[in-house]
Every structure is written in structure tokens, then in C-alpha cells.
């Protein structure tokens, strides 16, 4: 019995300790930092201070400076200035649009892979994952080349637009570019869970429906789609959540007005060095993600129950 307990600790102890130290504690410190003041030179105001009377180093709280210790100011700032809330809304909109487009592109592909002969399936799935294994920045960069004003693509689009009489548009550094690249880097996350779901469908159901007179449209909306909802929700969560926190894509292809929450967080930590406010933004993002993940699990479960 004692041996078993020892084994349990020997096995689970090291990863537990490591993740406590390098994940749980840093997260807790960040949550704490959201209630602190920024330091004079960026970062955080130190917890220790030299007491001018005694010349000793003391904890702020011991020196009686409670007012300098914790504050709600950072949170009030977030709720009082509409800019921040608007940026959150905009990021939700970007991530949502990305999710919907990914779904529209991924569904036919996943359905087709699931219906193709078994021996081809692994290869077709691998072909979806393969580009996703190239570096993330390379995938963003590839679109910077395509959308660049000197490129063939941008030139031909603008030539076509010129014929209709619409002036040349800038493709790179636009909302359009942000959404397009977000879709590109997240697409496999949608295809894989959808495929995993669609592959398990019992094709006899469709045949039965056809025998009973349902046309292709009805068969899809009344059988395939409801059955695939768990896969849809899983894919939506896998696309929406990382897209919401993205900062590199808007940074590289978004220009000045394509920024998202991630860019603001990065700004607070690296440029204006207001860590407490950066932490508030991070906490808000975390809360949003947790709520969405919970929601997706709930709906996913509900969908499964309804479908079966």
C-alpha cells in the first residue's frame, strides 16, 4: 500500500511540480498583478520599499502603504473606456467570422474524406495536416507575398476592379487580409474533428432516408448535419479560441486598424510596459475563453443527445 502511494507520487510528482511552478504559479502571479500598480520604469511597482524614516527595506503593506499595494483602478479603466470593450467585440467578430468560413471550407472536404475509400483516407487527412506542420510564420508570410501590391494576384484583382471602375484596393494590411490569414492558419483544426465525426456516421441512415423519399438536401439537413454537430462544435472551439488570442497575424498583415486583443496585450507588456493593465486584459481574455469552452462543451453534449 505504501509502495503504491510512493509510486503514485514518483510518477505524477515531477510533471505536477513542473507545471505548478511554470504554469499555475505564473498564472496566479498574473492574476495578482492585475490588482497592482505599474512601476515607475514599467513592469510592476515593487512590493518592497525603503522606509524613509527607518531606512529599512519593508514590505509596502507593513509600512502602512495599503493604498499603494492593491487597486481596482486597472479594472475600472477597462470598463470605463469603451475603446477596450470595442476591441474585444471586434476580436470576437474576427474570430467568429474566421470560424464560420473555416466551417464552410472544411465541411465538404471532411465529408469527402470520410466517404472516400478507406485506403485513401489516411493520405487525404495527412495532406490536410502537412502544411500545418510548416512554421506558423511561414504560413503568414506566404500570404504577405501573395497579397503584396507588387504580386500577380493583387495586380490581377486590381486590373479586374479597374475595368468595373473601382479604384485599386489594398489587399495586404487590411481587415480582409487578417480574416483570410486567420482562416488559412486555422483550417486544419476544423477539418480534423469534423472528419473524425463524419467518418463514424452510419451510411445506412442515408440510404434509408433516400428509400423513404428524402432528397439530397433533406438528407443532409435532417441526418448528416445534426449528427455532425459535436464535430462542428469541437472544430469551432479549436478555431475560435486560438484565433481570438492571436496577435502575430494582425501584427503582420493587419496594418493599423486590423489589430485585435492580442496586439493590445502585447503592447501593454512590451511597448508601454503597463503590466497591471496588460494583466487585466489577459484575465478578460481568459474569462472569455473559459466561458466559450464551457459553452461549446455544453452545446456539443446537447447536440449529441438530440441527434441520437
Amino acid at each position, binding site marked *: 500500500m505504501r509502495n503504491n502511494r510512493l*509510486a*503514485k507520487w514518483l*510518477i*505524477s510528482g*515531477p*510533471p*505536477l511540480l513542473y*507545471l*505548478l511552478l*511554470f*504554469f*499555475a504559479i*505564473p*498564472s496566479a*502571479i*498574473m492574476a495578482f*498583478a492585475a490588482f497592482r500598480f505599474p512601476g515607475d520604469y514599467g*513592469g*510592476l511597482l515593487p512590493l518592497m520599499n525603503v522606509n524613509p524614516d527607518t531606512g529599512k527595506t519593508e514590505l509596502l503593506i507593513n509600512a502602512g502603504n495599503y493604498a499603494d499595494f492593491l487597486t481596482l483602478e486597472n479594472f475600472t479603466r477597462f470598463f470605463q473606456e469603451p475603446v477596450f470593450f470595442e476591441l474585444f467585440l471586434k476580436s470576437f467578430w474576427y474570430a467568429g467570422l474566421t470560424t464560420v468560413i473555416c466551417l464552410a*471550407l*472544411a465541411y*465538404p*472536404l471532411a*465529408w*469527402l*474524406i470520410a*466517404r472516400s475509400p478507406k485506403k485513401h483516407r489516411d493520405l487525404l487527412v495527412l*495532406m490536410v*495536416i502537412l*502544411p500545418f*506542420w*510548416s*512554421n*506558423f*510564420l*511561414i*504560413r503568414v*508570410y506566404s500570404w*504577405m*507575398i501573395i497579397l*503584396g501590391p*507588387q504580386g500577380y494576384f493583387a495586380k490581377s484583382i486590381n486590373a479586374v476592379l479597374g475595368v468595373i471602375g473601382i479604384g485599386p484596393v489594398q489587399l495586404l494590411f487590411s481587415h480582409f487580409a487578417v480574416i483570410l490569414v486567420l482562416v*488559412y492558419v486555422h*483550417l486544419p483544426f476544423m477539418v*480534423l474533428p469534423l472528419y473524425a465525426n463524419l467518418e463514424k456516421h452510419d451510411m445506412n441512415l442515408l440510404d434509408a432516408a433516400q428509400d423513404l423519399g428524402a432528397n*439530397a438536401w433533406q438528407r443532409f439537413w435532417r441526418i448528416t448535419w445534426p449528427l455532425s454537430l459535436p464535430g462542428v462544435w469541437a472544430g469551432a472551439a479549436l478555431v475560435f*479560441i486560438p484565433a481570438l488570442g*492571436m*496577435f*502575430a497575424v494582425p501584427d*503582420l498583415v493587419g496594418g493599423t486598424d486590423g489589430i485585435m486583443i*492580442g496586439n493590445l*496585450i502585447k503592447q501593454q*507588456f512590451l511597448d508601454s510596459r503597463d*503590466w497591471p493593465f*496588460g*494583466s487585466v486584459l*489577459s484575465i478578460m*481574455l481568459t474569462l472569455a*475563453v473559459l466561458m466559450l469552452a464551457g459553452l461549446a462543451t455544453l452545446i456539443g453534449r446537447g447536440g449529441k443527445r438530440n441527434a441520437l
Partner: protein
Amino acid sequence: MHSKQSKWLWGAASLVYLFLYLPLIIVVVYSFNDSKLNAEWVGFTFKWYEILFNDAQMLTAARNTLIIGLVTSVCATVLGTLAGLAMYKYKLRLLPVLVLTPIAIPEILMGVSLLIFFVMLNMTLGLVSIALSHIAFCIGFVAIVVRSRLQGMDESLVEAARDLGATPVQAFRLVTLPLIMPGIIAGALMAFTLSIDDFVITFFTAGAGASTLPLQIYSMIRIAVTPEVNAISTLLMLLTLALIVIASKVAPGAIKAQS
């Protein structure tokens, strides 16, 4: 009617595949283009590769990336395998949460919290802080692969070994370990790829001290599009491809386990 439908679907699917591959093909093609602009095809050249191999900053970044990748891979594989075993064998509450959350949340959150943490500890940001952070987010990926391998294992083999007199440690070393080895190797390769590819967490934990290939690429493409980036991108894609081929040889089924 069916064939007409599937023709449409194949058409749509081919377009999606094209959408996935065309941008990367363009990157590769332009790495051989004799023009600075990455816009029009001018002529064939190896010039950008030459420039790349003489770029001291890029070479240092490549060396850093490899060192961090190897250290991360070894540490995350050991810790992740333990975590996978623990999650398979015992009913635990805290460990699964700690293992899975870093995978589920946007990377930027882990990046900034680790930045605050390291700065509070007065640690100089650099190779060490990057590697420590990479290990933290790779553990989960290894754990998942190893656990799924364990779930697919026939438990009666271990019981048989125990019946025949093997101690728990022997049964693990002689039966369990060889059986889950493909999962462990897949996990190690995955941790290595994740580490050499990581941009976001590295960006926050690197400080001014150390650069990695993704950081180097980022700072280059922020300023201007240059074919030198195409060259390094092409080489990185080849490296990833090689790793996948190795993975499929060493551990067939490993690639499936990852998806």
C-alpha cells in the same frame, strides 16, 4: 445523380487543397527567384541560400533553436510520459487540468504570465527561460500521445508478466515501456517540432538576449519581404518533412496518434 454530386464535392475539395498548398509552393518557388521583390519571376538563382548561409545572426538563431528544441524535447518527453502514465493509472484531479489547460488557452496568455514570472524572479531572459517555457507547454502534447497509446494497450500483457513473477518495475520496463515506445518517440518528435516552430511564447520569454529562427523570421518580415526568408522557410519545411518521414518509419501510426 450521385456522381454529379461527388464531382462538385471533389471540385470544392481540390480547391481547398489548392488553398492549403499554393501559398507554400509560392514561398518555395520564390526562394529561387533572382529578384529582391518576391513579386515577378525574373530568373533562377541560389543567391538567397548563399546569403542565408553567410548570415551570422540567422546561423546563431538556428543554433539556439536547435539547442532549445533538443533540451525541450528530452525534458518534455520525460515529464510528459510520466504525466501520461499518471493520468492513465490514477484518478487525479489537479494533474489533468495542469496538463491540458496550456494546450487549450491562447498561447499569448502563457507567454505573458511567464514573462512576469521570470522578471519577478530576476532571471535574465534568454535560452534558459525559453527552454523552461517550451517544456511547460510541450508536456501536455506528449502526455496526450502517451496516454492514448496506453489506452490502446492490452492490459492483460502486464498482468501476465506479473503472474509470471515480474516486479511492477520489471513489468513496466519489459512490457509496458516497449509497447508505448512508439507513442513516446512520437511525443518527443512532436515536442521538438513544437519547440522549433514556436513563436508566441518565445516572443515573450526571449528578452533581448537570445533569438530563435521564428523570432528572426518575424523581425525580418516585419520590416520587409525578402527572399532570404523564403530560403530559410524552404529549409525549415524540408526539415519538418524529414521529421515526419522519420516519425512514420520509427513509429508507424504515430502520425495518426497526433491527429
